[in-house]
């Protein structure tokens, strides 16, 4: 399966903790120079997979090749060319923005003069040029994320791991991060992105896998996945007696799903449903194209994961 131009190759990966299987045989290959998504509900094994890839968790079984380095044996050498944006910020609160970059670069054995030369560019990229001497504590959540991203680039990595990079950010901050990540892909970097924001995955990822209960349940391009797994149109219906109403009109669409007080009609052609809706004035409805979230829900179910 390993090909020359893949940044990350995993096969037969298994990991269990105390007899409970967290990863039960994962295999995939992330091609170099694109954004590769790892999607899944909470507890699906995303973070454990990332930890295995970085050599932070020894797998019970399986092979991992990161930039051609065998993990975990050769993890230190592989990490020299890898950047990581962790799920929660672990910037150094005792230092300024600039010091955070300088000190982090030392862990890679980079020369101070080299880092100093790169800092203005990194700060520009992160939109933090005017924050160079600010203490980390004074930064907003979005700024901290951007500094974490800049820090992950301090060694000019080929492969960047991002573990839910926009969780907890407001839309403005999120869009800025997305824009920067697209720029990085345009620069030829490989991004390995875990997320449970389907919009994020749809916008950024050229290929992705969906994990659930430690297994790969789907793999492909987001648009292909939508086309192959789900009907193209969705009509959501809610309001008084929406569920009852929907059940009675089950035959008007290919697939009907009920979640709480909302009914989801998945159809190729929405005309019959819309006609029926026109007659039922009290119901509220929303017509939209099917998206990755619909695929995700179909594959991983609607029940809560904590």
């Amino acid at each position: 399966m390993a090909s020359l131009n893949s940044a990350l190759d995993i096969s037969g990966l298994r990991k269990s903790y105390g007899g409970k299987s967290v990863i039960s045989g994962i295999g995939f290959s992330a091609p170099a120079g694109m954004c590769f998504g790892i999607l899944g509900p909470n507890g699906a094994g995303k973070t454990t997979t990332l930890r295995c890839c970085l050599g932070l968790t020894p797998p019970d079984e399986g092979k991992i090749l990161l930039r051609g380095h065998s993990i975990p044996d050769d993890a230190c050498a592989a990490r020299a060319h890898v950047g990581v944006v962790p799920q929660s910020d672990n910037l150094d609160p005792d230092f300024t923005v600039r010091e955070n970059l300088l000190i982090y670069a030392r862990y890679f054995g980079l020369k101070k003069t080299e880092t100093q030369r790169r800092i203005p560019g990194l700060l520009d990229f992160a939109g933090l040029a005017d924050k160079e001497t600010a203490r980390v504590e004074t930064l907003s959540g979005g700024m901290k994320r951007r500094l974490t991203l800049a820090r992950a680039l301090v060694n000019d990595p080929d492969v960047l791991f991002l573990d839910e990079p926009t969780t907890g950010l407001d839309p403005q901050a999120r869009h800025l991060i997305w824009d920067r990540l697209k720029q990085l892909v345009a620069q030829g970097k490989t991004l390995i992105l875990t997320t449970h924001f389907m919009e994020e995955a749809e916008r950024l990822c050229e290929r992705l896998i969906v994990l659930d209960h430690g297994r790969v349940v789907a793999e492909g391009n987001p648009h292909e996945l939508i086309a192959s797994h789900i009907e193209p149109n969705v009509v959501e219906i809610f309001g008084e007696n929406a569920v009852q109403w929907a059940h009675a009109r089950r035959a008007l669409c290919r697939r009907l799903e009920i979640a709480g007080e909302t009914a989801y009609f998945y159809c190729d052609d929405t005309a019959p449903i819309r006609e029926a809706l026109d007659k039922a004035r009290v119901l509220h409805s929303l017509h939209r194209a099917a998206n990755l979230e619909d695929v995700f829900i179909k594959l991983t179910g609607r029940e809560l994961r904590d």
Partner: protein
Amino acid sequence: MIARLFGKPKPPGLRRLSPGWLPVWQRNFLVWRKLALPSLLGNLADPLIYMLGLGYGLGRMLPQVSGIDYMQFLVAGMIVASAMNAATFEALYSAFSRMHTQKTWDAILVTPLSLDDILAGELFWAASKSFISGFSILLVISAIGLSSLPLALWILPILFLTGFAFAAIGLIVCALAPSYDFFMYYFTLFITPMLMISGIFFPAEHLPRAIYLVASWLPLSHAVQLVRPLLLGEFPKDIVLHVAFLLGITVAAFRAAVFLTYRRLLN
């Protein structure tokens, strides 16, 4: 802008130019440097208050202790105890903050450095804190004529040795701690009793034999038996034994700390 950011050539530094622990040590040193003055004063204040309080207070009532003035006796104890405290606080509270609260170690673990490098950096840094703390007391007491130079300068490497031993033990406790509260057990069950029976405040020989034997297996008593004679301008007896004991404790405890920290963080 992007061109500059990702401008080649590749940075050269991915070879190991320096030992892996050094950047970790440097990080801690840089943080300390920002608050060096209050930190130094804090290091000095506590032992000096004990020295003045107990030294003058008790010293007036006591005849000579082990053949010397009580103040002279106590000074050596205070230097060793401050070295112990400095390394212990660093390896417990500060290292735990970096491991557990600030997640500084997590950030370092995704660089080419390994957990061994991080722990070694913490070990060296905590020992450096012992050195800084002991050295500043040594300066003060030399200024008031309570040390015998130049022989007392041999205390400086012993401060490091003492620091290494207590840092290594402290890192074990850090690896096992569920929260900061846990450290209280270590202080009340280990550090404080050790302080009482290791010949810091009074000669250990006067203790019941069983307790004296226990004390002879504690790192603090070995450290003080090295420092006290040097402070008086004499060569310590059994130098090799004491040094070997402190080194042995350091190596054994550090290996245990590495094992336990791996189990905690990288499983």
